[in-house]
């Protein structure tokens, strides 16, 4: 195994380039993680002082059925949002590639616009659409003599309704990243596959899919993590209800932060969720890296 030797100015440039990220990561991620870890083993506040309680806050969180329910809701969001968002983004990106300018740019801008809207605006737009008595969707249903649906007030529909808003809000970003991945695949590969007599499906399976594997893995992880932690849209649209059917893990933490007089429980639940996301992300990374090394 050969060791690569870097020139000193290369090292300096690397340090300068990495320093801002390192400082930001340390300040806003690493230090808070350690602070949360230590605070999760304490009970008390600035006023009463703090008492070391070991893992008792963790025990309280882990034995709270609402915590596990919020975890389940987090997974439900992932199942509803991530596959649809990735598949839709792939098809849209494939379509955009085939379009000519200026139509391509127009479509890209149109798809990306929801990304620049705040979650509050997106929530408000969809709340108008879902409104029970006079919303657009129920008005359309009425035309077809279909009964009104309480989209956001019925536990059977609320999560999907919030999920659709989330898909719409995030689709532009995922599509553009996916587009970047597709554009990175050399055209030669497709030409070679055509010469070998490959059909569309074979080209997709043997050229496109391996070509966007890394981008796909990145999107899978980032969508999984952000969707599991969805908070803003349910907070605006349903407040986590009805019957907590739209309250994910971050909503659960937020509620304890708001109403508990001490913060040990909140810290412990935050650490557990961070731990879960770290393990889940690293598993996906490991999967992707090992498959790359086999190539």
């Amino acid at each position, binding site marked *: 195994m050969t060791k690569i030797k870097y020139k000193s100015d290369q090292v300096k440039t690397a340090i300068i380039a990495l320093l801002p990220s390192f400082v930001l990561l340390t300040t806003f991620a690493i230090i808070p993680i350690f602070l949360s870890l230590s605070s999760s083993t304490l009970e008390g506040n600035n006023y009463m002082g703090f008492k070391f309680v070991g893992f008792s806050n963790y025990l309280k969180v882990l034995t709270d*059925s609402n915590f596990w329910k919020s975890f389940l809701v987090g997974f439900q969001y992932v199942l509803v949002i991530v596959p649809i968002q990735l598949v839709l983004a792939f098809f849209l990106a494939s379509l955009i590639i085939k379009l000519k300018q200026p139509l391509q740019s127009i479509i890209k801008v149109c798809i990306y616009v929801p990304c620049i809207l705040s979650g509050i605006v997106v929530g408000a737009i969809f709340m108008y659409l879902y409104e029970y008595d006079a919303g657009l969707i129920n008005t359309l249903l009425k035309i077809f003599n279909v009964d009104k649906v*309480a989209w956001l007030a019925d536990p059977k529909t609320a999560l999907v309704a919030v999920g659709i808003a989330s898909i719409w809000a995030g689709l532009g970003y995922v599509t553009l990243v996916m587009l970047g991945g597709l554009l990175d695949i050399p055209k030669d590969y497709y030409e070679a596959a055509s010469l070998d007599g490959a059909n569309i499906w074979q080209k997709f399976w043997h050229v496109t899919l391996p070509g966007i594997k890394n981008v796909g893995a990145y999107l899978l992880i980032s969508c999984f993590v952000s969707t599991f932690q969805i908070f803003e849209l349910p907070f605006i649209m349903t407040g986590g209800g009805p019957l907590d059917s739209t309250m994910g893990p971050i909503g659960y933490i937020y509620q304890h932060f708001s109403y508990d007089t001490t913060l040990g429980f909140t810290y412990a639940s935050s650490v557990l969720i961070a731990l879960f996301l770290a393990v889940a992300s690293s598993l996906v990374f490991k999967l992707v890296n090992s498959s790359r090394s086999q190539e």
Partner: protein
Amino acid sequence: MKKSRLVMVGLVLVGLSTLNSCKNEPWGDKTRIVFWTPPFPEQETRDWLVKYTDKYNEINTDNVYIDLLFIAQDAWEQTLKTSQATGDAPQLSFENYADILRKTMSGLYMPLDDYLPENAFADLYENVNEMTMENNQHYIYPAFTEPYSMLFYRKSMLNAAGVTPPTSWEEMYQASKVLTTKDRYGIQLIPSAQLGWAIWGFQAQAGHYLLNDNWDAPLVNDSFNHSLFDVWYRINKEEYTTKVAQESYTMITPLATGKVAMQLAGSWVIGQLKNDYPNVLDDIGYVPCPTIDGIVDGVTTSAMGGWGMAMDAHAENPVEAGHFINYLLAGDTNIMLEFFKSTGYSKLSGRVSVDEYMKTAPESANDPFRKFMVEKIAPYSLAEPIYIWEISRDYAQAMESTYLSNISIDNALKALDKKIKDYILANELAGTNPQK
């Protein structure tokens, strides 16, 4: 050299401008005491707070400046919590009675007895004393109290339908049924988002809330709660109420705009009606909240809550801060009279002297809604519960689960009973009731 001089000049300029900006702050050289308040719904109340804080800052000679800041209602708990966790809490803040004792147990607030004159506390009603005291010390000085639950209705709609205002839960169901039309719901019950706390008014009718006095057993799986769940279930299931609430429990808009014929609401909405919907005011009627057996005279029909001022346990200027509380809430009765006028007499005073004064002031003495509250509601109202919020939240969810998830009432109550028992164990609540 030139470059370093330029840097020096720059630094001096920045320093001077910083000093200058400090001098431009309204408190100047005075000691700044930060006072946080949520933005109460009525503009007149906000104006009242600004007016008397400014007045105090003009007249006080303590070299103190009260810096009044309105914090968004939606972020109130979180902002206050963050400031307390980071050691940056305001010296003065508004607090509600439901939270104060629990927070006091966590050491967040300072007893006020050493910083306000004795007669300020002697002026309080006995039931208000109970709501504000722990271990014989006051932790909050009341600004107002307000009943949580009453039934407001449109006289014209009830007359047209030949319905009299309901007094029992069954009558409330029947009236809701008769009053529901194609374009209007019979009643707006309590919206889902506020059900956890606004249902306290109904719970209070049992004479107790969801835990026994020792906080070691739930009091939920009984016929009273079964009946309450049942009427709620039927009105919701048969859609005599809005499936999706049109407004928060704190707003009277659905009734004022005629989208519902009856609406459950707290006393505060009369201020909104007077200020925002004067044209429908004559058509609005109000009665005590219906009860299980229809008896509404001389019995508890509502919970009683309210807000007052509290002092942070780490307040650096408790004497000066206490002086301001005394000025604003405990002193001149005219100041408080103006406050109650600003709310359309939708709230009640915790002070005997202010109440006596209001009985003699023509405008307040003749206000029919105030008279109704003072005579029919307030004397019998139960102070709001002070145990952890999850218990109230789970009660609301159990109630909703009957009509949203078709859980039977028996099963919902059984599950609730078990959940509260789990909370009692997990949070070691037994024997911790500070009011026992």
